[in-house]
């Protein structure tokens, strides 16, 4: 009989689930988030309670089996939020614990190959956010950006923006997942905000943003137009680099 393991959706919860699998020697399982769970008559269900102590033990023990880099990849795979990714991560961890050698580069194993493919996709999205975030300066001098990435990559962007924009306050807000990062000139914290719909509405820009903000957006748009060489137009290449779903963030593509 299969056991459905229900966890709270956090990475800590997932690692607690792994602990549980070992503790109770669960053989056949499927891991789902609380909000995704649908009851059925055939499977047993268990609700896992997140426990930082247990999670830490799993995470530490992994260090003896795989590299720090491979551990980070598991975290990145988790951020993909793809359906069923939890099962693959658990399988990966089981493989790692069961093996004498470092399994992370054994791409002939389908689980490992799959995880590495997902990580590539997540990395790509992370880099896109590094590139496509467009800050707007608010009236109280915070540089503010909204994003809706395909995957939950915002935690991965934190270091890059903290290192680069060390002397300005900034917020990057994921409107899809309803949380953001706020840098207050010292540290980056996770925040949730009530975001007024109107904030992304052109007409209201001056209510929220600084007087020069609109001007700089126009200057940038104008620059973008003039740096283009018309006789070299190559639309398919353009769209390949900047897929249309990202245009809504981009100041230069909005107008």
């Amino acid at each position, binding site marked *: 009989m299969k056991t459905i393991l229900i966890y709270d959706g956090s990475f800590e919860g997932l690692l607690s689930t792994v602990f549980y699998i070992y503790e109770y020697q669960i053989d056949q399982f499927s891991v789902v988030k609380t909000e995704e769970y649908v009851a059925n008559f055939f499977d047993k269900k268990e609700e896992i309670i997140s426990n930082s102590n247990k999670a830490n033990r799993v995470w530490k023990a992994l260090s003896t089996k795989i590299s720090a880099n491979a551990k980070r990849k598991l975290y990145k795979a988790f951020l993909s939020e793809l359906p069923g990714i939890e099962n693959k991560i658990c399988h990966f961890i089981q493989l790692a614990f069961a093996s004498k050698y470092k399994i992370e580069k054994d791409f002939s194993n389908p689980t490992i190959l799959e995880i590495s493919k997902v990580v590539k996709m997540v990395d790509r999205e992370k*880099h896109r956010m590094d590139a496509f975030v467009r800050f707007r300066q608010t009236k109280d001098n915070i540089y503010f950006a909204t994003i809706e990435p395909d995957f939950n990559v915002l935690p991965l962007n934190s270091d890059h923006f903290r290192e680069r924009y*060390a002397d300005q306050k900034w917020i990057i807000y994921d409107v899809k997942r309803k949380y953001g990062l706020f840098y207050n000139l010292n540290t980056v914290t996770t925040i949730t905000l009530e975001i007024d719909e109107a904030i992304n509405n052109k007409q209201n820009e001056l209510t929220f943003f600084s007087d*020069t903000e609109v001007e*700089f957006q126009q200057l940038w748009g*104008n620059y*973008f137009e003039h740096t283009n060489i018309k006789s070299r137009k*190559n639309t398919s290449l353009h769209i390949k680099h900047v897929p249309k779903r990202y245009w809504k963030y981009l100041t230069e593509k909005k107008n």
Partner: protein
Amino acid sequence: MNFDRINEKLSILADAAKYDVSCSSSGSKRQNKNKGLGNSDGMGICHSYTEDGRCVSLLKILLTNHCIFDCAYCVTRKSNDIKRAAFKVQEVVDLTINFYRRNYIEGLFLSSGIFKNADYTMERLIAVAKKLREEENFNGYIHLKSIPGASDELMREAGLYADRLSVNIEIPTEKGLKLLAPEKDRKDFIKPMEKVKNEIVQYKSEKKLLKKVPIYAPAGQSTQMIVGASGETDAEIMYTSAYFYKSFNLKRVYYSGYIPISYDDRLPSIGTSVPVLRENRLYQTDWLLRFYGFDVRELLNKEHPNLESDIDPKLSWALRNLNQFPIDVNKADLRMLLRVPGLGAKSAHKIINARKFRKLNWENLKLIGVALNRAKYFITCESRVFETKDRTAAQLKSLILSNSNSKFRKDIGPQLNLFDAPNLKTA
């Protein structure tokens, strides 16, 4: 700041600067210091792409498009009847900082028409960079143009603030330069380049001995040549390029297909199409010289002064040297592996690693990512079936062309991905 006026200047001075194709912002090592603004120690990010598919990573503008020279191939030339404008130093600083803070750009690429004289112009460019570094504590990327003829002292100073310096030689041959820019002298281009090279060499050796040496042009130097403006051959372009790489330790040479901007009858007329395919073949050749161990004389010479347009230069070379093939991928050294058409540098290294564990067969090679539709005619491996037929170069060429997958065919169609390659991390 007078917005309308700045906006107008920006239009004019971005328009004039866009023919410089370099937009690389990688290869520097500048970290954010003292909680200042920006860094440029990473890979360099393309924040956007123009509609022609080119990476937008820097604010690329001229300080002014007033110029005392009259180079026929340049929009900024004195005799051209266009609107002129000039930024003030502070205006460029403000634009850079404000664009950077909004995450539009990685930094500034500042060039200029030559007003008054070379040194006067160079001083203004340096003033912008200095202000950015010292007053704004800006650690983003700065690329400055070295003005031909600028003095050694100024070039020394420029490198203290800029990450990259470049002088565009533009015209590959001396005779072309005489024809199109008679007032200019090759020596004027070389002088600042030489100085920067020497400073970089000195910086590197001093850094080994002393802890605190002021950082000098960490992303090195580059140059650009215009392709198709002066009737030059591919051989002339690439020999010049090889010479500059070697003599001045350049990081990059850019090739820019000439965009007709003038009715001057020394030049291709307006309406002539941009030689995009040729440009792409030149980049491929450049790659072969820098990363695949080819010597320029193997690829271009008296018998073959121009690259073939329908196949890439490596395949073209292999077809002329069939006597060196087939090679056994399980034995051949890296140098020869790199010479196999359809086999990239990544695959070559993977082969060398993988063959330690087992002898590789076609299946293995495919998984590694070798383009077998081309490579199979040039290699043998641990399989009993391989191409045994003796074919002439012409037969092979038409066979490969007719069997190529869409990606390869696309290469010779209009949709080139040529800016993909130069944006790689090697820049």
